[in-house]
């Protein structure tokens, strides 16, 4: 059996993603696709933020490309990237065996539960921009943090009833560990014996350099500041519209388009932060402004059918 397990080890980054997809699909989650906007983490996807609100049951999993401009290191740091992937699982209400389900997913990607030391170490989660918090753990495998495990308690200042269970896997770090790779850029993205073998670096090194330069030194802060204000204004304007659409005569509250603007504002803020033009005091004010947008969108969402109204 042990031999079989060894044979079963994943060979590449995408292998791990595919196995997670297969595993969570098998557990009944809807396999969503990444959200088509720039976000800082998988949590920003409306499938997590908005769907954790209201009473309707929900189960979804997806890969989310995530951007943190301040973490750019020109592709040189073995662990840090300004663009990376998160794997996100959200289930509402959180099932009683969520820990066991999670551990099953680690086995599915080739972590042998008989040889490793898996631990749930206290780590409470809070997102000031989303006005959200939850309790849970960071999950350690042999001393390495491989996932975040959170029971959402509040999102956008609203109590989560029922509670959503959220699992977030940092895919690069997890895969590096499973594949035994020391530098992210050396990690095989597809199978090393494929006709065109590609490493993570083949695909992303150049982009990391380009974005690092742009994020830190080139991005036009005047334009960004304007974009922030535009997104903020548009978000409010969308939600200011009457619920009844004059053209169709239907009730259409536009929570999702408004939330897109909140996401946009949040990302623009991250870019401004990377450019170093936001002082410590201003920082809090910007975070507060994004939180106010998220709150408005959440208030609108819970008045819609998907929000359980």
């Amino acid at each position, binding site marked *: 059996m042990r031999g079989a397990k060894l044979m079963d080890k994943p060979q590449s980054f995408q292998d791990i993603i595919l196995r997670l997809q297969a595993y969570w699909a098998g557990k009944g989650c809807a396999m969503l696709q990444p959200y088509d906007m720039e976000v800082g983490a998988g949590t920003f996807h409306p499938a997590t933020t908005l769907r954790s609100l209201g009473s309707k049951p929900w189960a979804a999993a997806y890969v989310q490309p995530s951007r943190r401009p301040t973490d750019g290191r020109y592709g040189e740091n073995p662990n840090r990237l300004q663009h990376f992937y998160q794997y996100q699982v959200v289930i509402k209400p959180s099932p009683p065996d969520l820990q066991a389900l999670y551990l099953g997913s680690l086995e599915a990607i080739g972590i042998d539960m008989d040889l490793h030391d898996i631990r749930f170490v206290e780590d*409470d989660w809070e997102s000031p921009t989303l006005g959200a918090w939850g309790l849970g753990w960071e999950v350690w495998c042999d001393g390495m943090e491989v996932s975040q495990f959170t029971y959402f308690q509040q999102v956008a200042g609203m109590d989560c009833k029922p509670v959503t269970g959220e699992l977030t896997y940092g895919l690069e770090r997890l895969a590096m560990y499973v594949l035994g790779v020391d530098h992210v850029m050396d990690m095989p993205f597809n199978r090393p014996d494929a006709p065109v073998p590609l490493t993570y670096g083949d695909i992303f090194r150049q982009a990391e350099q380009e974005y690092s330069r742009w994020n830190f030194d080139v991005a036009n802060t005047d334009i960004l500041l304007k974009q922030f204000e535009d997104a903020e204004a548009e978000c409010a304007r969308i939600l200011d519209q009457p619920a009844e659409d004059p053209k169709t005569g239907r009730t259409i509250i536009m929570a999702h388009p408004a939330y897109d603007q909140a996401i946009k504002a949040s990302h623009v803020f991250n870019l401004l932060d990377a450019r170093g033009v936001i002082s410590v005091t201003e920082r809090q004010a910007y975070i507060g402004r994004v939180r106010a947008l998220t709150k408005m969108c959440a208030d609108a969402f819970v008045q819609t059918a998907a929000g359980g109204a």
Partner: protein
Amino acid sequence: MDYLLELFSEEIPARMQKRAGEDLKKLVTNGLVEAGITYESAAVFTTPRRLCLNVCGVLEQSPTLREERKGPRVSAPDKAIEGFLRGAGVAREDLVVKADKKGDIYVVEIVKPGRGAAEVLTEVVSEVIRKFPWPKSMRWGAGQLRWVRPLHSVLSILSKEEVEVVPVDVDVPVGDSTEGHRFMAPGRFSVSGFEDYEAKLKAAYVMLDPSERADLIWHDATNGAFALGLEVVDDRALLAEVAGLVEWPVVLMGDIAEDFFALPAEVLQSSMREHQKFFSVRNPKTGRIEKFVTVANRETADGGATILAGNQKVLFARLSDAKFFWENDLRVPLGEMAAKLEKVTFHNKLGTQAERVARIAALAREIATDVDADPALAEQAAEICKADLMSEMVYEFPELQGLMGRYYAEAAGMPAEVANACEQHWQPLGPSDNVPTEPVSVAVALADKIDTLTGFWAIDEKPTGSKDPFALRRAALGVIRLVLANDLRGALRHIFVLSYADHVIDKLQGLQGARSKASAEFAKTFGFTDDEMDSLLSRKFDEMAPHEEQKSFVKGFANQVFSLENPTVLNLLSFFHDRLKVYLKDKGIRHDVIDACLKMPGNDDLTLLVKRAEALQAFLNTDDGENLLQGFKRANNILRAEEKKDGVSYEGEPDVKFAEEPAEKALFAALKEAAPKIETALNDENIEAAMAALAALRAPIDGFFDGVQVNADKPIVRRNRLCLLNEIRAVMHKVAVFSEING
């Protein structure tokens, strides 16, 4: 019979386990006792996944309580009797007639039957679970119950000959079973009592008792280190935490690559402790950290090899980061690091860290002469003491602030006093922290804390009630301990004024430009009226020569600031006195004794103040002291009463030629002798000698009250005697304000 309770949940944060165990024991046993169910002993155990309570010798049934309740008189109106029946919940036929002082009355015996332990336990445990005082709790799934993390099952059994499951009214399965180790022995099993439970858990790879786990970890770690000629760095807090992270501890020792030996030991320790929960293993010969100990939660077929390799890899990455920070930091001169403080706001009304450092440096220079430090060194130390806040290492490991400053100052070849001050100026951080004694460190430590205090006083951000977000009480206590431990003399008030002025004048100069939003803030902060502000702002006062009235305004302002009677500074001083009272009370000095000394002049000289208080308390504990105090009180009471009656004060000097009685003459003589002695002693600051001189007054004062009638018939004699009493008061008040002391 015995009761066993286990609350089985997902992983409980290590830091909460101990307190949760204590709370569980207290709440359940209190609930039982309140309901009349006593017990012999109770013990509590915690693991990451369970809280367990074992109560032995539980009373099976609470005693039946009988209470006789008196009702109305037999002759009372029917309505009153009905009311009594309703209130007592009994029927008319339960009533008995009894004779009472008032005549025949109705009486009823109310019987509260005893309740079974199981019934009470159900009630108590359900309530305890629902209202458990977790510091932070959560809901999960679609349920309403709150617990620290999802609660999975409750084991609740009473055992005697038979095992009985005690129901618990919460929305999780309740029974006689539990689970073993998550990975090594999954699956449920039933238990029949505590011994069975503990033994079966151990067989299922769960060590129930946290102290047993901690002992095992420490034993295995120290043995392993000893075998290699090494020692484990003692860390009780980490040991307790790690024992709370595992149910089946397995100690593994790993290597640290030699590349990292050059890092300061504290850096290795912080990095390993904070991020990885590793113990450091030191080579006693070199003092270097050469290995680490990690504690796994399981045994594996490969003897932990995979686990250790993984941990080692994570550590390697962490230490590579630390090494990178260390080497980068060493390349940056401290002055350059300090310059970056310009970009860091300390507080939006108190400017940047760089401005703060400049104030501290100026103040440290002033203080240096008072504490026998070289002013130039004190200034130099102050200028770089916060530089390490801008180092990459401290950014990553904030707990190394100060210490890294020392390392970087040493590496830059700065004088030892300067390097020491970088580390020590933060001290004392808490009531048990060390107090610096090296003069340069003392000067910078004082300047740092005093600048913080006068700054927040200047912008009126004082601590209120339980709110002290800037830790100002701690800063004041730090100053007090620095002054006392180093026997520092000199008036604090002068230093406060200097430091306060630096904040205020700084702001004033900042206003030389045009009107700004900040100016309104400034006016508010410093209590200027709009007119004053206008006159200040409409003309720039540094090029102001032409306008006399403006000069005088600025001068007036400056005079106000630079006054020892500056109300802000006086307010700060009284804050210090409050802190000092708390501090001295902990040292066993009475509140009233402190007050008697605080009322004396020079009360900003804390060293003298404490010396006085200690000597006074010691004196009051002697026979002479106690009697003298009584004599003082008597004199003072008579004097106050007579002064009030006569509407005059008897402050004139008494004249010995009007003294008639021998005891009176003796008191005159004694006072005449004591007064100069006290004067001299106080000038020499020999408080004990002053007390001794006072002691000599006890007998003559006692003699006076025994042998002399104060209210004599002859007005001149009476007046003279009252003046003599006043003289007693005056002489004694030279030493301390005795009227403050409770007798």
